[in-house]
C-alpha cells in the first residue's frame, strides 16, 4: 500500500501547473473590472487564500477533536500543522487584503469593517495558540490544552465568514450572494482555477510540513535509543 506522501511530488507538480495557469488567467485572460480597474486582480488570490486559512483552522480543530476523543499523538501533530498553515495563510490574507484596501479605498486598514476586524481576531487567536503550546512542556497535557484551545477558536471561523452578511457592512465587498457570483463567467472561471490551485498548494505544504515533523520525531527517538 502506498503512503500518502508518495503522491506528494505529483500533487506538487500539479499545484505548480495550476498556480501557473491561474497567473496566466488572472493577468492575460480575465477582463479588467469596470469599477476597480487592475487592483481587482488581487481578488483572485486574496479570496482563495482567505478561504484556505479558514479551511486550515477548521482542519486543525477537527484533528484536535479527534485527539481529545482517541488520545492519539498523530492527531495532535496534524492539528498543530493545520493551525500553523492556517496562520501562514491568515497572515497572507491580511497582507494582500491590506494592499488591496490601500489600492481601492486609499487606506491600509479600517476598524469599521466587521469582516476585517473579525478576521484579525481569528488570526490573533490562533497566533496565541503557539504561545500556549510552547509554554507547556511536551506531553499529553500540552496536547490536550492545545486541542481544547484549537476547538474554541474554530467557533470564530463561521462568525468571521458570515460577518459581512450578518452586519450592514458596505466597506468590504460581497462578491458571492444569494443570486450567485457577482462577476462574469471568465472572472468566475479564473477564480475557480485560482481557488483549486491554492487549495492544492496548501495540501502539498501540509503534507511536506507533516513529513518533516514526523522525521524530526523519528530522529529524536533514534537519538534517545542510541544514547
Amino acid at each position, binding site marked *: 500500500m502506498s503512503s500518502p506522501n508518495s503522491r506528494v511530488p505529483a500533487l506538487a507538480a500539479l499545484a505548480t501547473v495550476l498556480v501557473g495557469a491561474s*497567473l496566466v488567467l488572472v493577468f492575460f485572460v480575465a477582463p479588467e473590472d469596470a469599477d476597480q*480597474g*487592475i*487592483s481587482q*486582480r*488581487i481578488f483572485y*488570490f*486574496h479570496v482563495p*487564500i482567505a478561504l484556505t486559512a479558514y479551511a486550515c483552522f477548521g482542519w486543525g480543530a477537527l484533528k484536535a477533536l479527534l485527539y481529545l476523543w482517541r488520545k492519539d499523538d498523530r492527531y495532535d501533530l496534524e492539528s498543530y500543522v493545520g493551525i500553523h498553515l492556517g496562520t*501562514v495563510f491568515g*497572515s*497572507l490574507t491580511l*497582507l*494582500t487584503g491590506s*494592499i*488591496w484596501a*490601500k*489600492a481601492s479605498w486609499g487606506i491600509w486598514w479600517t476598524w469599521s469593517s466587521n469582516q476585517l476586524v473579525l478576521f484579525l481576531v481569528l488570526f490573533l487567536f490562533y497566533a496565541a495558540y503557539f504561545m500556549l503550546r510552547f509554554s507547556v512542556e511536551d506531553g499529553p497535557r500540552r496536547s490536550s490544552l492545545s486541542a481544547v484551545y484549537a476547538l474554541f477558536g474554530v467557533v470564530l471561523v463561521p462568525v468571521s465568514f458570515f460577518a459581512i452578511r450578518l452586519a450592514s457592512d458596505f466597506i468590504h465587498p460581497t462578491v458571492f450572494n444569494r443570486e450567485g457570483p457577482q462577476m462574469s463567467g471568465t472572472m468566475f472561471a479564473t477564480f475557480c482555477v485560482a481557488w483549486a490551485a491554492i487549495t492544492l*498548494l496548501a495540501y502539498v*505544504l501540509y503534507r*511536506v*510540513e507533516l513529513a*518533516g515533523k514526523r*522525521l*524530526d520525531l523519528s*530522529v529524536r527517538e*533514534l*537519538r534517545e535509543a*542510541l544514547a
Partner: protein
Amino acid sequence: MSAGEKYVAAAYGVIFVVLLLWVVIIAAKLTRLERELAELAGRARERRDDG
C-alpha cells in the same frame, strides 16, 4: 507603471516571498535532519563495529 499596477505587483510579490520563505525554512530543516541522521548512522556503525 501605474499606482494600481504597483499594488497588484506588491500583493502577488508578498505571496511569492512568503512561499519562498516557507521553502527556505523547510530546506534548512531538511538539511539539519540530514546532518543529524548521518551523525546517528555513524554512531550506530561504531556500535556495530565495537560489539
